[in-house]
């Protein structure tokens, strides 16, 4: 089963107020994206990773693996920015291939590094939230923001039924394999097809049964939610505010430096 879902239930930050966690994660993320500075991104990445491993309690090895997942996509994306194929060599590097060059500019290299560091820092911010906060807590937060209930209800049901479907699919696969459903590629493919069909039919039947069960409990068209009260703590808010102020300071310093350089010209 998706490991990522289980981590948040054992996180040491699970019972921290959801609003606080959300604010910390998103303000920091926005800071990173706004500043676009490599130094800032590396700073955020370091702090967030330290919190994720040290405070939230994710095993370092597992955290590394999780961070490597987006890295693959990132490298593929940045390669396109950093490397050009051109008849003229650019200023950073140039490898002659036949009559052309595999070449890159200094600016391109810098943009690549900037992209990777900002993206990784952003991912670490999002991991902070998603690896410490169960989906249901997020839903109650959205509910308290008065998000349209059709959205929150859809999320609530989707999240729950995703697991039911996955579990059913896992059992069906086991049962197919017990009957040599993976004997060769052809059988395997046919089994996958059958699995998809029966899952689909099952989902429709289930939906009917679930609706009956909801009606049995006086469902009247809206799923009301009860917030589990975990009030925010003043100390935590202060720490978050302090950190965000620091980031803001860094951004401002960066911006003014840039203006100062313009003025020098």
């Amino acid at each position, binding site marked *: *089963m998706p490991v990522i*879902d*289980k981590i948040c*239930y054992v996180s040491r930050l*699970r019972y921290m107020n959801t609003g606080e966690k959300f604010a910390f994660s998103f303000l920091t993320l926005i800071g990173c994206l706004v500043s676009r500075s490599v130094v800032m991104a590396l700073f955020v990445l370091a702090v967030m990773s330290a919190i994720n491993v040290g405070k939230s309690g994710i095993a370092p090895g597992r955290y590394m693996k999780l961070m490597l997942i987006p890295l693959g996509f990132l490298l593929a994306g940045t390669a396109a920015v950093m490397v050009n194929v051109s008849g003229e060599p650019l200023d950073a590097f140039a490898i002659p291939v036949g009559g052309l060059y595999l070449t890159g500019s200094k600016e391109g290299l810098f943009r690549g590094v900037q992209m990777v560091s900002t993206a990784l820092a952003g991912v670490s911010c999002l991991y902070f939230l998603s690896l410490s906060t*169960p*989906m*249901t*807590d997020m839903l*109650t937060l959205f509910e308290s923001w008065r998000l349209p209930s059709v959205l929150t209800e859809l999320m*609530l*049901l989707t*999240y*729950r039924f995703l*697991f*039911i479907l996955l*579990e059913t699919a896992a059992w069906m696969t086991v049962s197919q394999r017990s009957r040599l459903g993976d004997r060769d590629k052809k059988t395997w493919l046919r089994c996958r097809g059958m699995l998809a069909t029966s899952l689909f039919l099952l989902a429709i039947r*289930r939906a009917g*049964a*679930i609706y*009956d*069960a*909801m*009606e*049995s*409990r*006086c*469902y*009247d068209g809206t*799923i*009301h*939610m*009860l917030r*589990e009260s975990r009030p925010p703590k003043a100390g935590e808010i202060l720490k978050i505010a302090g950190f965000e102020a620091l980031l803001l300071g860094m951004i401002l310093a960066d911006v003014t430096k840039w203006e100062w350089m313009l003025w020098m010209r």
Partner: protein
Amino acid sequence: MDEMILEARHVSYAYDDGHTPSLNDLSLSVKKGSRTVFMGANGSGKSTFFLCCNGILRPDAGQISIAGKPIVYKRKELLKLRRKVGIVFQNPDVQLLSASVYQEIAFGPLNLGLTETEARARVEDMIARMGITPFKDRPAHALSGGQKKQVALADILVMAPDILILDEPFAALDPGHVRTLRALTDHLSDTGMTVIVATHDVDHALEWADDLILMKEGRVVAQGEPIRLLSDERVLEKADIHMPEVLKLYRKLIGKGLIDAALPAPKSFDELERYIERKA
């Protein structure tokens, strides 16, 4: 005369205008405060009947009355009805709709229009009383079958129904959970709640129920005192169920003259043991 809390008269129902009706001219009545057991093969119409009792399904013919009043199929009336009739579904995965146990149990009370404070108090009380506290912070998909069942039951009990319908509550439960659940149904019945249980366990039906309804192919084969129905070989054959072990043993012991034949048939092995001890 006993007060009837649930009455069905000539009820028929067929899914999607099918040729084989699920309920076929079914008539029965359930006494207020009784422990009523429904037995019958899979597909004999028990679950369909239960869904008719809280107005989820509307019979094609016939009438169902709750506490003397025929069901009125209007939105408001149905909501009132479902407050009184609580059904615990056989498969908890059908019933549990939130991944959070707390939200799950709160679903019903909030639908009853309770204030947040009241609902919260009820939910927390139910979590404590049902022994859910140890796993209340786990997501629904990480619960064991027995734990899911506990939550599903809490879902309904928190709404404080007058009639509690348990659709095969013991299916796929380990002995520990079965014991807990039996103790709970005993307790609920003692508080005056009408408890209806569908089960395949003849031994439990004999020991626990004060009224037994045997169903087959959408009809009632027989209704009456469990000990009377379950000793009657003709009835058993018609309903396609076997005699409880304790009654079989009781008959053999009488045949061998090991117990007093004048004693009434025992409801449990404990009772039978006392008969043997008395003779010896």
